[in-house]
């Protein structure tokens, strides 16, 4: 599903992280860990195709990807349900209703509220709903647990399990203590480019 060889990204001619190589199959979870500033976000963005690697190659990459990162990609001036309806219509790959997805992410009570009035955790849940509406094979998640309460963390793990069991794959970057529990997990410790 995703196979990369010696991917490297430079900013101002300095490598952000040490070259990365891995292969991710269906049902696999790649857990990218590392210290703050080691380049986890940059790596995820390179994998997503937003940034282009300075060197190295993608031996294979599925076209069907979904990405949830620091910039949540939700509109502050739209309500939760409007955001989700737009995601659903725009991506056009889901046959799930937006109401059903709102219920799954636990935002029914605030579904008519504008996104700017939500808490950070609620906004995160709204962004995560995109994963349920996108019907894609590969998930690229950058700190999916941040801002979430215990229930939210369990929600992410539930969504992840369902996705992986159905044959999807996921690259998950986190620096936090919580790790998802999955049998086909590969741990990848990202090393900052500045480290010797």
């Amino acid at each position, binding site marked *: 599903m995703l196979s990369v060889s010696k991917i490297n990204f430079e900013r101002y001619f300095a490598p952000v992280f040490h070259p990365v190589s891995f292969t991710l199959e269906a049902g696999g979870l790649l857990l990218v860990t590392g210290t703050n500033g080691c380049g986890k976000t940059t790596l995820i963005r390179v994998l997503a195709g*937003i940034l282009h690697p300075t060197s190295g190659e993608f031996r294979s990459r599925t076209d069907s990807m979904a990405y949830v990162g620091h910039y949540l990609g939700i509109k502050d001036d*739209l309500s939760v349900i409007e955001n989700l309806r*737009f995601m659903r*219509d*725009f*991506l056009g790959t889901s046959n799930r209703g937006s109401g059903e997805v709102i219920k799954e992410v636990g935002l029914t009570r605030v579904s008519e509220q504008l996104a700017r009035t939500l808490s950070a955790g609620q906004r995160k849940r709204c962004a995560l709903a995109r994963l349920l509406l996108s019907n894609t094979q590969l998930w690229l998640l950058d700190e999916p647990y941040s801002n979430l309460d215990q229930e939210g963390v369990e929600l992410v793990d539930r969504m992840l399990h369902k996705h992986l069991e159905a044959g999807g794959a996921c690259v998950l970057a986190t620096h936090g203590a919580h790790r998802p529990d999955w049998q086909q997990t590969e741990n990848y410790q990202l090393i900052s480019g500045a480290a010797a």
Partner: protein
Amino acid sequence: MRTAFFALLRRDLLLAFRRRTELLFPVIFLLVVISLFPLGIGPGPQLLARIAPGVIWIAALLATVISLDGLFRSDFEDGTLEQFVLSGHPLTLIALAKILAHWLVAGLPLVLLSPLLAIWMNLPLDSLGVMILTLALGTPILSLIGSIGVGLTISLKRGGQRLSLLVFPLYVPILIIATAAVMAASDGLPYTAFLGLLVAGLITSLTLAPFAAAAALKISLS
């Protein structure tokens, strides 16, 4: 893809409606600038009539440049733009949908207000039709060409200043042709050649600008 195009268009129009006070500003700016001319240079009817085409068009240009920065900024800053890149839909069509929404919200009001502006500036009534036509043809060109500049400057802080420097030279030909058309109409001279040039400009920018804007956005994202 068509559903995605219209979903995006609807979303942008809805967002514009939600932020309508912010969007009224360019229109108000236009009205204020134009109303200053009779006050500043004296209400002599012949003088106003002579400069009316230029003044209205320059004010339309300025109002457009003010509103341009909002074209991609919000999506760039909250991560929606990178989601568009990831979605698999061609960024060109996404850019086109957003430019169309921008014109409907920022350009079309200028066209609709032009009769009022024409009266204020004492524009001869026989050239009013041509004035409206030049604005209807020209304002989409302004949005289209402007979007390329916005795409390039969106990642810069205070990119708006550099944006104006970028797009004004590109706007000059449109300004010259449009005002020439209206002045020719006022003088009873043939003007269809100028309108033809505007149509050609519209078709060219409609086909090429979205590609350029999409490429500019991809650069800005990386």
